[in-house]
């Protein structure tokens, strides 16, 4: 082994965790939306990209990263609600291919529209000054902003868990993803819950976008690149499973990060190999139920 120090390896593991966190935020939104309304949102990556761009413009206008961090997910989530009303709702009941096709078309339109408005060149999004430095963790130094991303991801996941497990709407969401017909028969207007969950999932994608902005840069194709990785996470974790999305997201994040460290040329390829192996061993994914969504 060439001089690979333990702290360099630890830093790489932490970096993988951060990337994994971003992937988890995306995959959970995908999984939630899919589990409830069998919509595969191909445009999820485009909302991630819109989150980063919105964050960039809000930051430029308000000079406050914190304002951007709060406003960007809200704006993107609100946009998601409009999309659900106008484009997704007419497709309910038409089978899962149609929403996938529609959101694919939508993602093309969004990417090109952003290029028209914001230009084709990538933008840089600076983290706030407080988080610009590195934190000494005792055994290594790690960029403060990355730790912050990890913390935000953890807070969002805990909040989401509380929402799903401890609130009435969360109960309806869980029941609705298990048996929508039965929930309807109990007199609950699932359409409103779907509307809400779609917006929530999109807002999480927007949040992931602004969080990722300072790490990966802001450019029109950023969403398409990450959506394919997020799809792999969902396939590996099992569609509709939240623990699956978390475990698989962190796993894929680590795999990418470690391969980048040891064999950079393989970094883009290895995720697909992991996916193929999981499919051979467990076709329904690590946490998936067999037969769901087929």
């Amino acid at each position, binding site marked *: 082994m060439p001089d690979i120090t333990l702290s360099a390896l630890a830093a790489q593991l932490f970096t993988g965790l951060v990337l994994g966190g971003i992937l988890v935020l995306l995959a959970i939104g995908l999984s939630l939306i*899919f589990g409830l309304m*069998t919509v*595969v949102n191909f445009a999820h990556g485009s909302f991630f990209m819109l989150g980063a761009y919105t964050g960039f413009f809000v930051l430029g206008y308000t000079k406050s990263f914190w304002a951007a961090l709060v406003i960007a997910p809200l704006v993107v989530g609100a946009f998601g609600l409009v999309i659900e009303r106008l*484009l997704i709702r*007419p*497709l309910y009941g*038409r*089978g*899962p*291919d*149609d929403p*996938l*096709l*529609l959101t*694919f*078309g*939508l993602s*093309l*339109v969004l990417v*090109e*529209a952003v*290029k*028209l408005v914001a230009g*084709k060149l990538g933008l840089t999004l600076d983290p706030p000054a407080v988080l610009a430095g590195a934190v000494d963790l005792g055994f290594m130094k790690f960029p403060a902003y990355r730790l912050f991303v990890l913390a935000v991801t953890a807070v969002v996941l805990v909040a989401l868990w509380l929402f799903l497990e401890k609130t009435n709407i969360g109960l309806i969401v869980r029941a609705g993803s298990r048996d929508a017909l039965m929930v309807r028969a109990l007199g609950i207007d699932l359409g409103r819950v779907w509307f809400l969950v779609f917006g929530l999932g999109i807002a999480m994608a927007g949040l992931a976008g602004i969080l990722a902005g300072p790490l990966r840069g802001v450019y029109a194709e950023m969403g*398409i690149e990450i959506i*394919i990785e997020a*799809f*792999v996470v*969902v*396939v590996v974790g099992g*569609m509709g499973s939240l623990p699956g999305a978390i475990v698989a997201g962190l796993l894929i994040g680590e795999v990418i990060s470690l391969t980048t460290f040891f064999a950079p*040329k393989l970094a*883009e*390829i290895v995720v*697909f*190999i992991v*996916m*193929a192996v999981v*499919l*051979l061993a467990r*076709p*329904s994914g690590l946490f998936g139920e067999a037969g769901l*969504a*087929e």
Partner: protein
Amino acid sequence: MSRGLVGRGAAWVAVHPVVSIVAFFAALPFVLPYTSLATQILVYGLFALGFNLLYGYTGLLSFGHAAYWGLGAYGAGIVLAKLGWTSLWAALAVGVLAAGLGGALVGFFALRRRGIYFAMLTLAFAQLFYFIAFHLADLTGGDDGLRGIPQLPLGFFGWSIPIKSPLAFHYFALAWAALAVAALQRVLKSPFGAVLAAIRENGDRATACGYDVNRARLLSFVFSALITGLAGSLDALRLNVVPVEAMFWSTSGQVVIMTLLGGAGTFFGPFVGAATVLVLGDRLSLVLVDSWPIVIGSVFVAFVLFLPKGIWGTLIGRSHGR
């Protein structure tokens, strides 16, 4: 009255696909402003025809057909440009075979899951092929594309037929497209074609009837990849270069758009869709430069919402059966 006439004409075309496609594409170079656009429509139409076998006729939505298109293009291109082969026949054979093998490999994995998983898996595997092609720069030219594919004449029983002129190449490609259409028609009219339709309509019932559904799906996947590989090989000869974007996900998306706009599950639909997208793109790029995909994307979204049968499917008044 005129509508009835259009409908009847369309119905006649639907029943006689080979004659119609040959007649249409024989005339197309004289209708369009330049021959190369007609050839591009033909080759992409053939690509969409291969995709349509899987989506329109078997009910499997692949988001990764760029892989087989690219394998066909690289297969034919590499033996001509890097290995110095001089036979177009052999080059096309290598391209088609490479695509078929790739299809069998991906099909083996991706067909383990259905529905939207299948779409995601085919997309992911296609990206795997893309990254491999990107990194094998010695063989594929990597980011610069595979350059230096020679324009060879076609050897035919001792004759050497030049196909260098755009019009000659157009008819060369048309001959292959006609063969592929005839073969596809033969397959779809066979008992195997009936099994594919049964799978599309209701896979569980087809299984219950005792058909080996998985084998039929895999065969359909491989046959689809073969046609797609033929189209990709022809495209390599048409352009004399294989850009690495040929394998990128956007190429897969393009064929999805073409097929749906034209009409999935119809014979002529893929060609109508390819013509619509390419002519529209050609005209729009004069006005909008790089931003024309906004229009295509919006049109596509509108079609999914309001006209899911596509242009040709609506004309002949038959759904593709979903």
